[in-house]
């Protein structure tokens, strides 16, 4: 089972922090990979918040292909960050890891954010498609104020490999996943967290309802719903579909993935809507065992469980700094000085929501709505 560590803070934190929390949960992952997503960037990216950042890896040939592609499509490179690689035994370094901030093409100057989001996603997908056959380019995210890093190996070693312990790469929200490879082959695109148009999530556990969910998402006619090298990628896409595409408030994500029973729905004020949602979104119902940690574009972070709470999860912290982890020891590492009695262990009906800048934590109960 994968281990998950997320920290949301009002101040910029080092990207190594959740990785150190992951280290305390080491017996829970097998070192088959680390995924990191950073949102609300500080450091050298603090003044580049408007510019979309392309995160990925490429080979020497891939770099040339990428440069040509971006130039051809009117993206101007504004800033580039590359990790200072420290050789680590067992981690095979690829040619070029990068996070590049670009200027939008001139034709997009006056366009809406929605149109820009479509452009960024389609560009990322096109790059992915070009680089996928020979693995010359991996593109993980292309979005303003977000960086994604992924590599195979022990999480702490991968973090050291990237030099994150010394680098000034900082962000207010950092999600980290230590992979426990189970059903599927080790593949970079299978590594959480997954990100699409401002929505991000990571999950532990197997997704037994993967195939019908994947088929449903892929048949929505939305070009971004592809990939699925991991059965957990669908959780991110369900989040995106529910909140961005269908425009449901965030709490309905819980109602989509773990719908209430008929008698329970009757207790809710919005029962009419819930009945329709339960029918129409039936293929998106998950069956666990899963715990999902995610964020949405405004910086709200959340944690939800499957309908039987078959996976652990805990949220703890202080105002201005909260940790959302799969185990308590991770929270201890991330926020040691806190009142542990106020830690929240969400149960099957709960959705823990941490507001932007980690100002407030709320537990939304699905039964009471």
């Amino acid at each position, binding site marked *: *089972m994968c281990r998950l560590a997320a920290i949301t803070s009002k101040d910029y934190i080092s990207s190594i922090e959740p990785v150190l929390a992951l280290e305390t949960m080491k017996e829970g992952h097998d070192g088959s990979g680390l995924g990191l997503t950073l949102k609300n960037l500080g450091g050298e990216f603090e003044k580049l918040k408007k510019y979309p950042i392309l995160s990925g890896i490429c080979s020497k040939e891939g770099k040339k292909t990428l440069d040509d592609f971006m130039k051809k499509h009117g993206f101007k490179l504004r800033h580039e960050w590359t990790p200072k690689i420290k050789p680590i035994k067992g981690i095979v370094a690829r040619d070029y890891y990068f996070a590049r901030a670009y200027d939008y093409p001139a034709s997009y100057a006056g366009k809406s954010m929605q149109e820009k989001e479509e452009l960024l996603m389609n560009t990322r997908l096109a790059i992915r498609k070009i680089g996928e056959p020979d693995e010359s380019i991996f593109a993980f995210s292309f979005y303003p104020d977000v960086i994604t890093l992924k590599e195979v190996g022990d999480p702490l070693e991968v973090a050291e490999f990237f030099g994150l312990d010394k680098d000034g790469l900082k962000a207010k929200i950092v999600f980290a996943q230590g992979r426990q490879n*189970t*059903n599927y082959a080790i593949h970079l695109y299978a590594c959480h967290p997954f990100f699409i148009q401002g929505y991000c999530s990571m999950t532990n*556990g*197997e997704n*037994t*309802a*993967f*195939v*019908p969910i994947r*088929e*449903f998402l892929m*048949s*929505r*006619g939305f070009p971004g719903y592809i990939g699925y090298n991991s059965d957990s990628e669908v959780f991110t896409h369900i989040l995106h*579909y529910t909140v961005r*595409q*269908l*425009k*449901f*408030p965030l*709490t*309905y994500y819980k109602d989509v993935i*773990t*719908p209430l*029973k*008929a008698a329970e729905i009757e207790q809710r*004020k*919005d029962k*009419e*809507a*819930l009945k*329709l*949602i339960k*029918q*129409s*979104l*039936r*293929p998106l*119902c*998950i*069956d*666990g*065992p899963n715990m999902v940690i995610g964020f949405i574009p405004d910086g709200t972070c959340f944690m939800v469980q499957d*309908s*039987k709470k*078959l996976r652990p999860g805990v949220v703890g912290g202080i105002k201005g700094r909260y940790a959302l982890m799969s185990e308590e020891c991770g929270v201890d590492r991330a926020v040691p000085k806190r009142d542990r009695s106020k830690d929240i262990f969400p149960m099957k009906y709960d959705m823990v929501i941490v507001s932007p800048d980690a100002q407030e934590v709320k537990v939304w109960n699905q039964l009471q*709505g």
Partner: protein
Amino acid sequence: MEPASGIRLDHNHQLSLKEFPYIIRWRDDRCKRCGKCTAVCPVKAIEPTVRVQRIVKSEGPVPTPTAVRSITHVVEQVKDMERCCTGCGSCTLVCPNEAIEPEFNPQHKFLHYKNKGGEGYKRGGRRNDPSISTLDRLKFARISMLTDPALDAGRHEFRVRSYIGRILPPEELPLKSVNGKLIVDKESIFIPPVREIFPIMIGSMSVGALSPPMWEGLAMGVAYLNEVEGMPVVMCSGEGGMPPRLLRSKYLKYFIIQIASGYFGWDEIIHAIPHMVEDPAAIEIKYGQGAKPGDGGLLMAQKVLKLIAKIRGVPQFVDLASPPTHQTKYSIEEAVAKMIQSMSMAWGFRVPVYPKISGTRTARAVLNNLARNPYAAALSIDGEDGGTGAAYNVSMDKMGHPIVSNLRECYLDLVKQGKQNELPLIAAGGIGKKGNLAANAAALIMLGASAVAIGKYIMQAAADCFGDEYNRCNLCNTGKCPRGITTQDPKLYRRLDSDKVAERVVEVFKAADVELKKIFAPMGRSTELPIGMSDGLSIDDQAIAERLGISYAC
């Protein structure tokens, strides 16, 4: 030389027993000549007769063998193919001394002769193919285990429920967000009726095809399952109307009323609409039947007795043949769209209306027509292994399409269009053929069915129907069902106790519910039915695996 008179010297002109599908094994030494077997035989395949026998006897203290001739009463199998033994075994059941039983003869030439008078062989039952169907070869091979724990069928909560009814696509839901809550804007769009049901339903078998105690037993069982067990099992009326009191009762909601090309019983139904206190579960428009594609319904004259004639609104003792097609409709647009509209309108658009077709290579054409019709509530596809009360043998044995690939291609077609959750598919035809009701149902669900319908299985399991795929019994069309299931003769149907049938229906569904959970639990599914979860299935045949898009395991 043969004598000119035409008198034959031997019996060479007769069929030998080797030509018959079942040979009666009668034991002279055990028979006490009570005559029960010959009386009970529904086809008069055996008869009492006398035979002159030469017996060597020896009496007294010293062996003194003496040949005597005696006249003995025997039970003899008739060598007339019109009265051939069907292997039902009623004789064995009534025999007090285990002196008689039919034995299947695999070398028989039954079909070579069963066309007397130029009339093709008609019968009831299902396709006479005892081989293992594709459906029964499907296995559930994806088991959640050490990587992630499986669920516990006995401890965890399960929701084994499905829907019939047109389900709106999420993008079209009339919802708006007010203060973080979604509310329904009912005025903006038609919200089609949807029923929550147990995913196994009792398929269409009419009052008329079934005897009064059989139909009543099924109906009572279904009502009990709903009212007492809380299991929303529904049952289809078949074509032939429904008992008038039931139409006006609160239990109507557990019944799907079928309309077919003969419209039998619909005069009564239409007149009952103003008096209905509940809406029916759904309306099924029958366009085809898996057992006999291209044929309409058929109720033989001998089954059209007073009660049936009254419910159907016809005279007694006439053959009731429904036309193969709906005679007033000339195109798929008319047949489907207009009938769905008319039926929906009759109940104020509060009742799901869906068509049933026989399995066919053209099923996808019908499906796509329905996919574009916002009032179509489902599509029921009845595969070639479905049963019937009466049909030509050739239709049953040689016409039709297996349900598995037909259902799968329809589901995948819906997936391509993104409508896999909008138009539920109901699969039927051969479910439980080998007794594996839950496994067959679960396999079809994982291939894309929202629900399955059973007919023959419930007759066998709840009322001990003799029929099997070796053409055993299959007398449903004659009105002489030895079990009292498909007859209107009170002397026969009094053998069937409707309470017992109802009890068995309840047992069957409760057991199926448990077994479904035993299948879903190790696969990690409990909250929703695993519709289309094809990664759970495997088969030991590469070609079938490829055709169905599932894994090959051996």
